């Protein structure tokens, strides 16, 4: 009888103690406002730095002369698991050599289908594309997610195909 009463009291006190322990943890955090981890997103945009390897979108690199390195070999198109890259190429007459040469007309990229798996960048033999760090892709119209990556009037950089 006495034993069971002692056990009962121990149970109650032990339970209360465990509850107080839990309250100590939360109590610590409310009394230490410095521990707050929330970041106010649009306000901290200036200090927000994405990591170099962050995979946000596929971009086609252009240099200052508006030249890119894409030869239109469609290796990325083949490597893409979701069909998010479409390359439309055309044969252009090269005035110097007089031969017809393949050149990209449109490098179409469907962001809505892309899973950022990095396989296209891996497959590119000329390092023409890379992953961009932009992550704010929200738009109001789905068609805006499809974009042509090569800038108008851009050309293949010389020396890439050699």
């Amino acid at each position, binding site marked *: 009888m006495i034993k069971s009463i002692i056990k009962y009291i121990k149970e*109650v006190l032990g339970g209360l103690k465990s509850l107080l322990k839990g309250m100590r943890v*939360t109590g610590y*955090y*409310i009394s230490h*406002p410095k*521990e*707050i*981890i929330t970041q106010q997103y649009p306000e901290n945009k200036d200090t927000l730095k994405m990591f170099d390897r962050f995979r946000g979108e596929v971009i086609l690199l252009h240099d200052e002369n508006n030249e890119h390195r894409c030869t239109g070999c469609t290796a990325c198109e083949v490597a893409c698991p979701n069909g998010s890259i479409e390359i439309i190429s055309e044969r252009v007459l090269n005035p110097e050599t007089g031969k017809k040469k393949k050149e990209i007309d449109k490098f179409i990229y469907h962001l809505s289908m892309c899973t950022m798996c990095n396989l296209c960048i891996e497959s590119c033999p000329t390092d023409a594309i890379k992953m961009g760090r932009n992550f704010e892709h929200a738009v109001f119209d789905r068609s805006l997610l499809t974009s042509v990556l090569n800038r108008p009037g851009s050309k293949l950089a010389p020396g890439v195909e050699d």
Partner: protein
Amino acid sequence: MKFDIYDFSVLTKSIHESLNSMMGETAVMISEMVIVGIIFLTLFAVLGLILVYVERKICAFFQQRLGPMRVGFWGTAQTLADLIKLLLKEPLITKNADKFLFNLAPFVLIIASFMAMAAIPFAKGLHAFDIDIGVFYITAISSIGVVGVLLAGWASNNKYSLIGAMRSGAQIISYELSVGLSLLTIIVLTGSLQFSEIIESQREGWWIFRGHIPALIAFIIFLIASTAETNRGPFDLAEAESELTAGFHTEYSGMKFAFFFLAEFINMFIVAAIGATVFLGGWMPLHFGALESFNAIMDFIPPIFWFFGKTAFIIFLMMWFKWTFPRLRIDQLLTLEWKYLLPINLINILVMAFFVLMGWYF
């Protein structure tokens, strides 16, 4: 006594007299009722707005977040914005719901908490309804609220709502006992059920300090039981978000949902106010026997601040519970009441009665 400088009865008496000089007895009564009603409605709305904001902020700080920050300075207008959103929302009623009861339920709940509010003494003389069985009145009125919950659960024609409502019924009926008995422990000391007298009896010191360990135990039991009675976590089985999606108010939207929400917070305020009144001396300032100058400084703080301060403290404790503990299961909830709180409470009353008989309190 010095702290009578903030006696509100002077003000209320003068208003009463000036009204009397203007009109007849019935007209005075009606106009006074209207004034009190308007004051309480305003208090109701303001308290609701503040408490919701405070709850969200405190919850956020417990969780290392910032909480609402966008609307107004530090998100102060957030609840107002929410209110506007709720007002503009379409009130939906489920098919085959009992429309009359469905619409009635939130009002039952809110009227119950409104009536309970009347008996709370905010400061000396600032007391709408100083009934001589105040404690009894409050425990009786606050159990009407469960009718609203049951109605809501039944009328919604939703199985989750029904389970939630039934849980709530079982819960509130059980925990009424503990709330009543823990208050009774202090009534043994005061010898009166009237709130003004309970407060007067604490002029020398609050019961939680003067009543030895039994008073402390009673206070802890009161905290637990009142948290359960207001359906707040860790006893929020009636709405149990992760089990019953939202429990009895799953099907409510718009302003009717807001009523449930408001009633929850007002109920929390009411039980905290009762706890503050009975255990922590209501609007009585903090006094230490020998420290005259300290007591004098304390007296200059208006009693209304003391009252709201103590209430806020208890509300904070209840929020602390909610944001720390996991939820109980329904059978454990009833086990806690019938196997732990009730026996401890009964023994506690006996001990307290013994103390009073021997005169072993300060």
